[in-house]
């Protein structure tokens, strides 16, 4: 088993511009079952001459049985795409798009309450399950190995780095989930930790955090009461100056709780293993497993 995805996952794609197309082709090459694309002005056309376009998510779901969606559409239209996927009751909606207005995300997070769909992202690299050769989003498949370490991260490139280091020490990943770098996003660390804890194929969890907000502290609290599996973590931004937005909209230190040192403290306190810098993730895993 993996989390979020399984062999029945059928993916629909919204937004096949330059990047969306490229990533969709990469996903198909990796093994993902991409069943349809959605574009209101391209119905009756085909992507790559084989994957049908539909005018709406609802129609794509009805005609192709899609149960997961990925969104590459530009930020001004991303809220609508997310809501359309929620309204179509997809199991999983992965939004790669960066730069969605925070007011939009606020609406979406309140709108999605008690809805069926699990939102991943936005501003995230998506999900990958190496054992199933299945990915939704942009995590490069060639750096992955099937295995039993779960990865959860707010940062895209740091997810890749963690994956690569795990593969380099000869181990592999069960599922990797990028939850996104925006201050308001879909699934949280806690949601994903819960799934990893329940997933029999996951033996250890790598958590990659960064400065800003208090989400790492919430993760620590959850770990202390609910997670028995070993958690290895690193926090990026120890040397970032306060008050500056460090690229990610969420990565701003406002107040003490946003400091890397506070987050490291909280996670160490609950028994998580600290990789002191990004380059030491593989090393740290090796030491404890």
């Amino acid at each position, binding site marked *: 088993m993996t989390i979020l995805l399984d062999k029945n996952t059928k993916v629909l794609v919204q937004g096949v511009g*330059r*990047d969306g197309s*490229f990533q969709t082709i*990469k996903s198909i090459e990796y093994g993902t079952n991409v069943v349809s694309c959605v574009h209101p002005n391209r119905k009756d056309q085909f992507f790559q001459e084989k994957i049908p376009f539909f005018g709406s998510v609802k129609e794509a779901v009805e005609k192709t049985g899609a149960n997961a969606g990925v969104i590459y559409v530009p930020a*001004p239209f991303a809220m609508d795409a997310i809501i359309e996927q929620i309204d179509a009751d997809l199991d999983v909606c992965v939004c*790669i798009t*960066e730069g*969605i*207005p*925070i*007011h*939009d*995300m*606020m*609406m979406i*997070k*309140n*709108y999605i309450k008690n809805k069926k769909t699990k939102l991943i992202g936005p501003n995230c*690299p998506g999900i990958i399950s190496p054992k199933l050769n299945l990915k939704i989003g*942009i*995590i*490069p498949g060639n*750096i992955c190995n099937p295995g039993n370490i779960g990865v959860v991260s*707010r*940062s*895209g*490139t*740091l*997810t*890749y*780095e963690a994956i*690569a*280091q795990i593969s*380099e020490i000869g181990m592999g990943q069960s599922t990797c989930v990028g939850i996104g*770098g925006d*201050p*308001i996003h879909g699934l949280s660390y806690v949601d994903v930790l819960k799934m990893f804890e329940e997933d029999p194929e996951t033996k250890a969890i790598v958590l*990659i955090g*960064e*400065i800003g*907000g*208090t*989400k790492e502290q919430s993760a620590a609290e959850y770990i202390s009461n609910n997670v028995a599996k070993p958690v290895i973590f*690193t926090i*990026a*931004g*120890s*040397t*970032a100056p306060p008050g500056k937005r*460090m*690229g*990610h909209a*969420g*990565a701003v230190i406002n*107040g*003490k709780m946003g400091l890397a040192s506070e987050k490291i403290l909280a996670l160490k306190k609950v028994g998580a293993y600290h990789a*002191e*810098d*990004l*380059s030491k993730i593989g090393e740290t895993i090796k030491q404890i497993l």
Partner: protein
Amino acid sequence: MNIHEYQARNLLEKHNIKFPKGKVGSTPKEIYNIAKSFGGKVMVKAQIHSGGRGKAGGVKICNSPSEAKEFSKKIINTRLITNQTGPEGYLVEKMFVTEITNIKKELYLSLLIDPDSECPVFIASLHGGMDIEKTVESNQANIVKMNCDPLVGIKPYKLKQFVDKLNLPKEGNSQIVSLLNNIYKAFINNDCSLIEINPLVIDDNENLVPLDCKITIDDDALFRNEEILKLRDINQENIMETRAKDYDLAYVKLTGGNVGCMVNGAGLAMATMDITTKSGCYPANFLDVGGSTDKEKIKEAFRILISDQDVKYILINLFAGIAKADLISEGIVEANNELNNELPIIVSMRGTNSESGFEILKNSNLNLYVANNLGTVSKLLLELEKQNDNFIR
């Protein structure tokens, strides 16, 4: 995006929020005339995108139009340095003149988006004015909060409880209800990430009067707020950061370092800073080329990076996901050739098309050091640092 105090006032006034009389001026003569028309005694405030103006000498109560003129003469067209501006300070091009309010009590009020509760939150403090940041940290008992619901707005029953806790005089009690509702409307209608009224005062007549305000607009929402975008004052921004923004790049200037960092992804940017610092070197800046990149963007990124005089060598640390390493490499080579760059470059590159990317770099004439993993990056940094005659720390 930040806007000036006088612009923030205008915006709030459009949402039926009343301020003391006030007007902005650009020359000492204009300031004189405004002060005169307000009856002589006025408050004169430097308009820059920073807090801490009072302590920095940018705000003054002037007893006469002449005093206002003299004060503005000293400030206008100088760079005001506050505890928030950095050592360069910001250029004062305009000053804002307001009539004097007799203050009985000062409060603090703000509305912002709280990532934890994922909704707009009003924060008030019974003690406003200067040093509010310290009050918030040290005296939580004086802080009152109210969550709003993005789908249904302010709930009146919560509003009542919030207002009750503020212990306002009777007049102020009814005034604050419409103030809060109007602030909320302004916040939602303009994609604000912060509206701050500080101080919000009770005056002699027990009326509630907002004296100063600050508004921050969500950069990601500027595409749908054309009127707000017109208020942008690029003189209040770092030139390089602004130039990067125009190319959809994220550039952050840092002080005290000499490594120019080019990365993709904010997380990697921070981790790269951390690694650099830990190895005993210091970043001069970082430039995040983001996910979706083309050659033109990369070239511009390189231009910005090496135009920073502090930069003595360059660290490129990329993990290509949505971006393609070969395209980035082509951009780097072309940029180096165009700009005749001779600074040494450490490159660590992985992910999508990274092998062909490396090929392109290796086949170029760049002064190149290749790192196979992040551990090697540290070592190469230290080596270069030792070779570097210009080591400044």
